[in-house]
């Protein structure tokens, strides 16, 4: 697709200059190492991965003349199951009744991802208590529910006594394989046999032993953590390849948000997951199974903060239309668009930035003022409709979810909207404001009727403007949408000027044009790859992993930026299939 990159007074030269004065905190040690090994350009400029080049597409890499960096995966880290992983795993092991009674601890984000928090933070007493209560509740529910499920783990063994060692052993072996996502070691088998026998004798019932074995295994670190230690790679001391069971687990939690099913564990046992081709075909089969849709939507919910909508406070006096129902419709609208592009169309993911269509139910159709395409009546079902051209909406930036989330309680926030675009879409970090600088703006009033007026004066302050110039103008172009995303043309009696620019990618007016400018911004596709990788592996990519991510990005672009293909390529890549040496 042909396009031109609009040059503006705030063009590339200025952008580089801004980085030089330190707006980008990305220029820290890690990054500096990374960039000095590449082009020698300013660290911050390289951070944006391509913004120093005027190359129109991210596929055409400026990094061709770098020395190839050696692949060095990050050291492994135990990854505690996310709350949804825990619940889904209990469901798959013991049925929906058991899943309904568990209350795992909440996730904690680091660097914007629950997965990273779960790979770095330790549990609290309260978390271990929640696991204890949940494990017992799930076990009790499973025993009270469909007993055929429990019997399946006994594999035909009929207990002859409360402490029937053979049948307890059978159960432990079979349930243990599912719960730990690998066969039990002999010492583990012995530990749980002891649990089963002791509690069965205390309770005078074989199945009391089963119940407490389940309760114990669901509290085991082998269930609660993804353990990814790998085996040595004979060709490379820096690399340990994940074994089949570890791969099955990583694949399943990433692509299905739940524990591996028996077929996947069989594939692990048979060595299918030891080869790139085996992983590739397994991933394709998983995608065909349909569960990846929800798993990937959970990733997008996280990076777009959609889960915050349900409790997003808005001032009822300023925004009487705001309601939990409206917020929920907005959440579903954004996911409907993303799922349409990825799963219905298997299309270029950048459509989520600038498609002139959206999805509305009756609530949203009324909110946006969109007529029914065939003159019918909207219902609770979501319908794909064209946006009203006069509202200049397009892609996620024209949707209520983004516009309401990145706003204040009783006003818009051009700064927050711009910060989101820089950080989440372009992977360009914005540092914290400097200390001891007044953070206020000139007051609203006749002299400064619009938010833009106030912020533009603020941008005259040299200290503030170095960073705010990167954020605020993006929001200025979206000022036709108020703090909950309603279209407006006036603010405090004055017509709003929404012609603005997203430096250095060009001028725009409204959400659709913002998306169009960003679609071809260098670095957008690599940013998507990096975010997905962070979620998939529970860590921020390291210098030694960037070369593989760049390769993945090249393939992604060459293939038309189709997420389904990226998922398969990512899990088949060496960076997904390996970890570094265990830290001493």
């Amino acid at each position: 697709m042909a396009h031109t990159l609009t040059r503006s007074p705030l063009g590339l030269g200025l952008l580089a200059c801004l980085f030089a004065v330190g707006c980008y905190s990305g220029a820290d040690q890690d990054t500096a190492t990374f960039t000095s090994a590449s082009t020698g350009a300013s660290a911050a400029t390289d951070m944006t991965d391509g913004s120093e080049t005027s190359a129109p597409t991210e596929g055409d890499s400026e990094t061709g003349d770098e020395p190839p960096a050696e692949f060095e995966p990050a050291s492994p880290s135990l990854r505690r199951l996310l709350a949804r992983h825990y619940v889904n795993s209990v469901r798959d092991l013991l049925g929906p009744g058991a899943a309904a009674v568990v209350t795992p601890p909440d996730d904690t984000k680091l660097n914007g991802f629950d997965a990273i928090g779960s790979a770095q933070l330790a549990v609290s007493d309260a978390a271990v208590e929640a696991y204890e209560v949940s494990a017992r509740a799930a076990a009790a529910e499973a025993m009270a529910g469909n007993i055929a499920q429990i019997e399946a783990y006994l594999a035909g063994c009929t207990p002859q006594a409360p402490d029937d060692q053979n049948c307890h052993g059978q159960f432990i072996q079979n349930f243990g394989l599912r719960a730990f996502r690998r066969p039990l070691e002999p010492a583990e088998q012995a530990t749980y046999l002891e649990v089963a026998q002791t509690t069965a004798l205390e309770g005078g019932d074989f199945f009391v032993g089963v119940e407490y074995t389940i309760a114990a295994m669901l509290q085991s670190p082998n269930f609660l953590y993804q353990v990814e230690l790998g085996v040595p790679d004979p060709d490379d001391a820096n690399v340990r390849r994940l074994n089949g069971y570890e791969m099955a687990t990583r694949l399943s939690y990433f692509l299905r948000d739940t524990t591996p099913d028996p077929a996947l564990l069989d594939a692990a046992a048979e060595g299918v997951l030891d080869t790139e081709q085996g992983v590739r075909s397994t991933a394709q089969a998983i995608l065909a199974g349909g569960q990846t849709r929800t798993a990937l939507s959970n990733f997008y919910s996280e990076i777009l903060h959609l889960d915050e909508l349900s409790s997003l406070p808005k001032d009822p006096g300023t925004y009487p239309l705001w309601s939990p129902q409206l917020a929920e419709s907005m959440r579903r609208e954004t996911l409907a668009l993303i799922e349409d592009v990825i799963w219905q169309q298997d299309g270029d993911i950048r459509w989520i930035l600038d498609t002139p269509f959206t999805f509305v139910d009756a609530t949203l159709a009324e909110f946006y003022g969109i007529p029914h395409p065939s003159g019918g009546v909207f219902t609770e079902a979501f319908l794909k409709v064209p946006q009203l051209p006069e509202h200049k909406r397009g892609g996620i930036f024209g949707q209520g979810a983004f516009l309401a989330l990145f706003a204040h309680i009783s006003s818009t926030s051009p700064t927050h909207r711009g910060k989101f675009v820089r950080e989440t879409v372009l992977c360009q970090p914005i540092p914290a404001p400097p200390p001891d600088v007044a953070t206020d703006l000139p007051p609203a009033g006749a002299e400064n009727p619009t938010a833009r007026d106030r912020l533009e004066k603020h941008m005259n302050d040299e200290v503030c403007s170095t960073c705010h110039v990167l954020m605020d103008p993006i929001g200025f172009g979206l000022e036709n949408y108020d703090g909950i995303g309603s279209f407006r043309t006036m603010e405090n009696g004055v017509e709003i000027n929404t012609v603005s620019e997203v430096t250095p990618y060009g001028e725009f007016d409204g959400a659709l044009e913002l998306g169009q400018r960003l679609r071809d911004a260098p670095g957008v596709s690599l940013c998507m790859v990096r975010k997905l990788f962070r979620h998939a592996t529970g860590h921020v990519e390291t210098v030694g992993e960037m070369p593989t991510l760049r390769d993945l990005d090249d393939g992604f672009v060459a293939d038309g930026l189709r997420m389904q293909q990226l998922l398969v390529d990512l899990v088949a890549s060496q960076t997904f299939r390996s970890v570094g040496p265990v830290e001493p």
Partner: protein
Amino acid sequence: MYLLKKRHLSRRTFLRGAVAGSTVALAVPILEAMLNSNGDAFANGSELPRRMITWFFGNGVALANTDDAGSLMWAPPETGANYPLTPQLAPLSDVRDYCNLVTKLKLFAKHPEVRGHHTGVSGYFSGYPYIKLDPMGANYSSKFGGPSIDQAAAAFVGSETFLPSVQLRVSKRIVTSEGPTLEFISHKGPDQPLPPIHNPQELFNKLFLGFVPPDDPTKPQRLTALDAVREDVLRLQQKVGANDKQRLQAHLASVEQVQKQIDAIAPLCEPPAMPGETNTDMEGKEPLEPVSSVMAELLALAFSCDITRVASIQFTGSVGYTVFHMLGQNKGHHDMTHEAADNAGVDASTIKMMECFAYLLRQLRDTSEGDGNLLDQSVVLLGSDCASGLYHTDYDLPCIVAGRGGGTLKYPGVHYRSNDENASDMLLACLKAVAPEATSVGGDNGYSETPLSGILA
């Protein structure tokens, strides 16, 4: 009295029972004969328990002059005892004698990259500079550099009680996107933030309904299951790297704590009635005052029954967007502190928060123990993450050290104007009030082994 129906609680003493290889304090109604003749200690000479609460609010206080970052309206110019109360401190009028107001402390515990809010909350509440977490230009986050002061105290006294500590949250408008430093105020260490409870009913359950009856038949089975978990943790520790070994060590400690709780015997304290409050918003409005009050009541009861001795209360969040709707406001608190035009609103919100803080102090003061009250035996530390949010200043952070700390802190309380002393010195004075054997707090440039003498009795 808010929502709880309070029952009379007798003074009580402690028995110690051997449980799971360690001891757990059991509270039973006290008999006068168990106390010494003064009623200020047990007849056998052992002291009444000491308690600590940290009380946090985000984003600092208002300024007298919004062009002057140093012009806080917080403290009066007069120092010493009987200091006059500014409008912001006026809600403390009937507990002022229990409040040491400390000004002009300097935050020594600072990462060289000073970052608004992050610097203050970690430095002030732990004495360690925050740890920066933004590899490869990922969205910036940070974590505490070391244990928060409440957890430093829990490390000394937590094993004496059913729960080593509890963490409470009043406002739910918390920023979660910049890491544990802003999200939580209690941290056992950099990698172990302790998420709080925001629902008073859940707090009630945790404090008063967590006990397993001694004759519960599932008790030995639950302990057996946890024994197996311990074995698995120990085996896994052998295979993983150094960081994960530490994380598993924390997991192991928590498993052992849960075992201890399962085996603990309930105090003979009569539990209060279940509160009706659940911290559920009505039409988008948070029930800040009712939640804060009922939590204060529950905490006083829990202290009185010696169920725990350490608590943290996050009243509002760092960068939090709490709306003080009861003051007619419709903006988030953090946003307001960053607008000079909203300075009066910030001032009003501070006064409202001091009313809530004073309610907590009164609950402790009005609960008798020995010949005194719980506040005599407690240290309650109030602080924030900025002096003024408008400038993100971290010098002269709001600081009140309330309670007599078992007689270790000045009474009647004074306004002590420090001479740029290390804020960690104040932390150490608080810690030693609970654990006299403590010798230092904090780390790196925030390290201190000199308790702030200006507030010591």
